[in-house]
């Protein structure tokens, strides 16, 4: 099924439908080890819930990292 990660269309199979599985597929090793936070369809999902968050077709996942700001 199709999902969107940071605006990019991605395809996942039936065994990859948890948020944790999708993140491990589409983030590289450096990103996985760094500080990030996640929202699905505009709602914050805490780290403790990555494994028990089931994704649906066309879900939009935002993975955000620290950056400079004013």
């Amino acid at each position: 099924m199709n999902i969107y990660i940071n605006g990019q269309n991605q395809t996942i199979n039936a065994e990859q439908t948890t948020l944790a599985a999708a993140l491990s597929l589409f983030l590289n090793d450096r990103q996985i080890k760094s500080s990030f936070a996640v929202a699905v369809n505009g709602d914050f999902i805490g780290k403790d819930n990555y494994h028990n968050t089931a994704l649906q077709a066309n879900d939009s996942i935002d993975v955000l990292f620290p950056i400079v700001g004013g």
Partner: protein
Amino acid sequence: MSLNIYGQSLKSRLLIGTALYPSPQIMKQAILASESQVVTLSLKRQNPADKSGAQIWQYIQEIVEQCQGYLLPNTAGCKTAKEAVTLAQMSREIFNTDWIKLEVIGDDYNLQPDPIELLNATEQLIKAGFKVLPYCTDDLVLCQRLYDLGCQVIMPWASPIGTGKGLMNPYNLETIRLRLPDATLILDAGIGKPSDACIAMEMGYDGVLLNSAVALADNPVIMAKAFAAALTAGEQGYVAGIMQQRQTAHPSTPTLDTPFWHQS
């Protein structure tokens, strides 16, 4: 005298941003030179190939450690209360802080805050346990509403973000200070030169938050020092009690026994 932000006592009254510097090294030098203990930053999507984000985060962590300071994440780019609340929750998880510089923009042209969405987001975030530092316009009633909702810190703009135009409406800013004597007031956005910061402190503001004025200076490190000095000068001027303006001239040199003249 120290700056109090939600019970946290800080030696410096300057809050400083991490964007727009010529290099991460200059950013670090400038922020340390400013003596600020509150450093703003943000969150954004990251291309997997882009390593600069991780590098910057490393620099910011080093700065905060060296100045024994605090992170102040912002919600830059948000246009609705829902977006801002989600971004605040994400920031709290990453940065492990309840502090949030709440920005909800209502107009892309001048990046003016949306007062309705700002109040809505503030209410939700305070209920969720956040310590909200709202970026707002210099509207007295809006500031009052934010204070009534529980914001101990209010951050009205001097002028639109990044313009460097300084204090557009000193009367409004003075009135906010007068009407909210117990709020911690931090002038945020639009500061261009050290004297702008000095004027805010002379008005009795508790602090100043800026970024572009230092980052875009020809020499950010020297400018950071200039701002630190300006804040100190303004604060001491306020504490010392500034003389009342007078309509007419008054000689400062005693006129009694003036030599030579008035002797016909």
